């Protein structure tokens, strides 16, 4: 069967916010998903995932957008997103332009393992001005060292780069926070996947 050519990718540009993350940025337009990946009535202990996206000069990027997609505590993906949000959502979206230090902070619950050979993780899709494609990466958790050891995807990543995919649990008290910076370039360049 003859295959159609895929539509070429283009950059998201600097001005996505009033369309894609309107509520976060204070524009008068609804948002289907936000930085809260679980509704107020959803079950489970909240955690925060926070970090920055850093360019090749180690400067934080103020016009990137992240999408997070994760399973619930039992390792199941949500099948349908409705408004108003109810229970576990699993899909999040934030721009990096609203905090003074250009950080992002998602509120969610820790995902469960989906099956043997898959450590708990969050899929990340990353967009920004200056990137002609979106990029795929993943967040694993520093307090899941044993599960991470046997994760099928981590295994194909060169060992010396695996740490770029592991969010570190911060020592602060209160809501557990996992820190995950994304480095576009340099010695700590984050691993990106081709899907």
């Amino acid at each position: 069967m003859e295959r159609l050519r895929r539509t070429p990718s283009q950059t998201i540009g600097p001005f996505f916010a009033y369309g894609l993350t309107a509520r976060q940025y204070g524009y008068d337009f609804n948002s289907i998903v936000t930085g809260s990946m679980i509704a107020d009535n959803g079950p489970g202990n909240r955690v925060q995932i926070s970090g920055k996206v850093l360019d090749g000069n180690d400067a934080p990027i103020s016009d990137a957008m992240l999408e997070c997609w994760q399973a619930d505590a039992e390792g199941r993906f949500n099948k349908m997103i409705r408004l108003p949000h109810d229970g576990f959502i699993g899909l999040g979206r934030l721009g990096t332009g609203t905090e003074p230090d250009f950080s992002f902070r998602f509120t969610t619950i820790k995902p469960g393992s989906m099956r043997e050979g898959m450590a708990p993780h969050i899929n990340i899709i990353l967009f920004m001005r200056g990137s002609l494609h979106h990029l795929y990466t993943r967040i694993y958790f520093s307090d899941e060292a044993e599960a991470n050891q046997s994760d099928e995807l981590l295994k194909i990543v060169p060992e010396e780069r695996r740490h770029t995919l592991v969010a570190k649990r911060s020592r602060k008290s209160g809501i557990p926070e996992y820190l995950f910076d994304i480095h576009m370039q340099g010695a700590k360049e984050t691993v990106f996947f081709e899907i």
Partner: protein
Amino acid sequence: METIDYQVQPPYLYPDYKSTVFRSPTKPLILVSDKLKDISLPAFGESAIGPLDNDLTKNARKNGEPLGERIKVSGKVQDEYGHPLPHVLVEIWQANASGRYIHKSEIHDAPLDPNFLGAGRMLTDKEGRYLLYTIKPGAYQWGNHYNAWRPNHIHFSVMGHQIGHRLVTQMYFPGDPLFEFDPIFNSVPKSARELLIAKFRMDWTDPEFALAYEFNLVLNGRLQTPFE
């Protein structure tokens, strides 16, 4: 199997588009097996879409109609095997008729339109079709190089049923004299640039109301059996 076709897709690093220099990965991407990339994305309920979300000529009116040329943009979303993709989330954003984005950090000296936001969204129907009404966006001046102007364009974000179905792109208008000067458009290999240009469709116009353009989107295929 290589999943990114560089006969069609832009490279990550394209120095004429200056922001790519410090924002593109320098190490090769890691290729994921079919088994591990088989990740479904959620569907979106009708409740996620407001009644005017696909009509940008109406969804931000304050005291009148937005200025500019009303247009209708329509097309189908399909995978590379030609299967229509129903219930796909299509989101768009764009400048107004003067070439001004409403974004707060935008500094281009062109007027805002109090009756135009420039954002919309819709789900494709059972045949994978979407339809939106909007105002034709103006050309936009930006800081990439001296006297840099973007051709008229509408930004598209498409979220299909699998994680590999994600696409963000830009739709351009036929015959734009700025094409040859725009590094973002020209980052795409020459033979594939036509895939980003909408077709003018006289037969789809709303008589005495709006001109029409067709813009079709082809996403990464679902995982296929070898015999399909």
